[in-house]
């Protein structure tokens, strides 16, 4: 292959410029109807000193076809679920049904204003209500708010509920002494960050060598008397079910705390087991994981918060309720509520998709998806165990963690393995998370891959293991098949350039 045509070449599709670099004065890509009302003089509309000062200089001027080519070309630089398996552990990258996209675009929903009177938006409110009911059934936790916009937002909501509950239960003085949130060292970064937002300080709970919560450590910390709650992910971020969950809840409850469950891994449990039955008090779900709403390159998400009957009055307002005439209504009259966490009702478009997911799967389909997700992870676990170090022995649930221990002896690390996987046409797994596992590779296939694709993935991973021995440079310099090579992130952070400027 000729060097001229490797990596970023003269090929147009690999060299799409920034739109600002493509802009040409006078080009337009829009057309509006002509103004059809009598024109008011500019001076009358707005005093000169309040008017825009710069004629929007530097904003792009391009035609519609320029726009299309710009984005279509850039899109080809992305990997996506639709191109193949996306085994990011903890992210649950499952197939995003086209049907659900269509549902979200039905004009009767897409063009509905959130402040339309209740009587003119009954269909939309019904969707919220039904989804609340289904999520309550799935989690076993009857109080549901769909207001949070993502997982972390749901965490914040849930933790604030814990805080409000304890403040109310213990009274001002006593509750001020209860400001510790326990969080496992394997937890996702949003957990401590969300706890912090509610005014808690965080204490870390150790994981055992088996990869689960260290009960002794938990008891010890609980004994200190200042514990407001425990934030647990289950299955935890190592893909292991916390079999002691009932005991854990008991310990925390006995110590006067509440149990928060990070529901990011609910894809291992839907239809099989319910957090509410385990003793969990409050949980958030990620509709953009378990319920298949698309990740969209980083969002939007939706992070419903579900809680016990006891905590329900603390949920954000407005609640969406059904009145005695089977009419749906907004209920603002919740004096114990922690307040509002977002304008309007949350990321409504995601709710439509999630409800469609639940309804097209049916109760049996939901369970089958869980079974397939776990089976696929087990299959990978089984398929890679002789080529990669698997730090925990217990059978994984929906995701499995391996490490680079064996490969690193040859200088090949998790990052290199991940990058090399790209050359085989796969998105890498989650790497270096959870932090407690050195060189972690967290693999979550989800239910959306078939036998064939699993075998291809396993074959690719095994091939890389072999390359790491036979031709480590090949792996160390990967990826080779992409538009650009590894980027110097350190340099980028040292002197950050965060926007285009005309004079640069």
């Amino acid at each position, binding site marked *: 292959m000729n060097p001229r045509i490797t990596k970023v070449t003269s090929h147009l599709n690999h060299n799409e410029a920034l739109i600002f670099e493509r802009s040409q004065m006078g080009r337009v890509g829009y057309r509006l*109807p002509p103004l059809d009302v009598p024109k008011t003089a500019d001076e009358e509309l707005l005093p000169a000193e309040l008017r825009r000062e710069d004629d929007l200089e530097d904003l792009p001027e391009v035609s519609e076809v320029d726009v299309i080519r710009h984005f279509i070309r850039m899109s080809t630089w*992305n990997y*996506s679920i639709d191109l193949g398996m996306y085994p990011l552990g903890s992210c649950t990258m499952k197939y995003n049904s086209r049907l659900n996209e269509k549902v979200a675009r039905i004009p009767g929903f*897409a063009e509905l204003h*959130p402040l339309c009177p209740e009587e*003119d938006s009954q269909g939309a409110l019904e969707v919220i209500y039904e989804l609340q009911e289904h999520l309550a059934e799935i989690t076993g936790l009857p109080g549901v708010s769909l207001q949070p916009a993502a997982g972390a937002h749901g965490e914040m909501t849930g933790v604030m509920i814990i805080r409000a509950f304890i403040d109310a239960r213990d009274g001002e003085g006593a509750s001020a002494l209860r400001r510790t949130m326990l969080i496992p060292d394997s937890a996702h970064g949003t957990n401590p960050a969300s706890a912090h937002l509610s005014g808690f300080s965080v204490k870390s709970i150790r994981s055992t060598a088996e990869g689960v919560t260290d009960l002794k450590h938990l008891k010890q910390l609980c004994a200190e008397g200042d514990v407001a709650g425990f934030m647990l992910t289950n299955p935890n971020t190592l893909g292991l*079910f916390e079999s002691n969950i009932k005991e854990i809840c008991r310990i925390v409850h006995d110590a006067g705390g509440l149990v928060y469950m990070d529901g990011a891994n609910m894809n291992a449990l839907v239809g099989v087991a319910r957090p509410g039955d385990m003793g969990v008090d409050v949980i958030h779900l990620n509709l953009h994981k378990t319920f298949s709403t698309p990740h969209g390159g980083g969002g939007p998400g939706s992070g419903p918060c579900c809680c016990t009957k006891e905590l329900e009055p603390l949920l954000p307002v407005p609640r969406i309720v059904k009145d005695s005439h089977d009419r749906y209504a907004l209920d603002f009259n919740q004096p114990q509520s922690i307040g509002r966490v977002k*304008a309007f009702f949350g990321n409504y478009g995601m709710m439509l998709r999630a409800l469609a997911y639940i309804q097209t799967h049916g109760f049996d389909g939901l369970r089958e998806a869980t079974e397939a997700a776990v089976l696929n992870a087990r299959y990978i676990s089984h398929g890679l165990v002789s080529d990669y170090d698997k730090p925990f022995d217990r059978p994984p649930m929906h995701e499995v963690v391996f490490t680079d221990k064996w490969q690193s002896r040859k200088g090949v690390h998790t990052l290199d393995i991940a990058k090399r996987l790209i050359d085989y046409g796969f998105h890498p797994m989650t790497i270096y998370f959870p932090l407690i596992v050195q060189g972690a590779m967290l693999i979550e296939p989800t239910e959306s891959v078939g036998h064939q694709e699993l075998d291809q993935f396993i074959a690719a991973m095994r091939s890389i293991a072999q390359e790491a021995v036979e031709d480590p440079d090949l792996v160390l310099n990967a990826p080779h098949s992409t538009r650009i090579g*590894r980027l110097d992130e350190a340099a980028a952070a040292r002197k950050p350039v965060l926007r285009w400027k005309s004079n640069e």
Partner: protein
Amino acid sequence: MLKQIGLTSAEDLFTSIPEDLRLNRNLNTPPALSELELLAAFEIRAERNRGASRPSFLGGGAYSHYIPTVVDHIISRSEFFTAYTPYQPEISQGTLQVIFEFQTLVCQLTGMEVANASMYDGSTALAEAVLMAERVTRRAKVIACGAVHPEYLDVVRTYVQHAGIDLQLVGWDEHTGQTSAVIADAIDSQTAAIVIQSPNFFGSVESVSALAEKAHTAGALLILVLTEAISLPFLRSPGACGADIVVAEGQSFGVPLSFGGPYLGLFATREKYARQIPGRLVGKAYDKEGNRGFVLTLATREQHIRREKATSNICTNEGLIALAATVYLETMGRRGLQEVASQCAQKAAYAARRIGEIDGFSLPFSAPRFNEFVVRAPSDATALLRRLSQEQEINGGIPLSRYYSDRPNEFLVCVTEVNSRNEIDRLVSGLEQCSR
């Protein structure tokens, strides 16, 4: 496959879950629907959203604007909507370059120096701005104008309740509908920031420059929040007015109403605060061969590195909506944005004039406006608007009593480029008739 890994039944997959915790029954959710049935069911629900298909003058934080057809085509590209957060830059350059352009566009429109990759929406962006002001100034008092969108104020209250921030509200001038002059007295050396919305919830354009000066004199920041981002091409830019943090709801940039979400929080500030920004940032980077690319950067601000010390707990943001906004802004372009903004202002001016002329109706606030304004009706506004909706099939506005129980007769009207003169005239005559 089960057999290949040595299991015999699906139940074997779940042995690590204690038996008493397993659900030994079917979920009590409905049986599976086919595509046909599902679509029919949602269409029926959609028809019960009568508010969706009518001429509408509802604004108040969510706006009807024309969305060029290309927007949905682009955001429906598999490569965009089924991708994850761009953690692997080599196979995420599409998303990354888009965000870099988005950040640039937000900077250009706000007149600010840096912008992030998005927040959940305008209201949470405002809450994060308040938290950031506290971090930057290490001061605890924040003064917000009461004419900020009431739901935004609610959200700020929730966010700051455990952050040791003292949130104070000042009212508005009943003549102009702008922030009351008393705010000057409230600013002191403990003040981290003042929070101003412009155009504010009543549609009044604020004297932002003057307020910024007052804040700066006291060493406080000016946080400017916009719910109607399409006013940016029309009004003096926040940057030029001296704002320190600008947050906005970006829904007007090509995002459907969708009953309130997903929307798009814009967040921009000065370069010197870049390391205090919440959320993701994309920056320029190069590979070994010197090829330009883009990466997520300054990640040490974020929760996955900093955990409880992060600038925010945000992780998933509004990526695809930021893409929609980017497509919208680039398609409309410099001249299109100016024209949309100008049409909004023109049509609102026409509507305001016509409504103001109706017997018994008045416009209580005198400040300059963009595309929203408050109308005072001769009788209860909620009842009036309900009649208008039932008899004329027009969504005439938002009764202020939804948020301000002491303002029963007033309502907020919003007019944009999608409202034809004919619709406006129908609104005017409808109001006339229904108030008789």
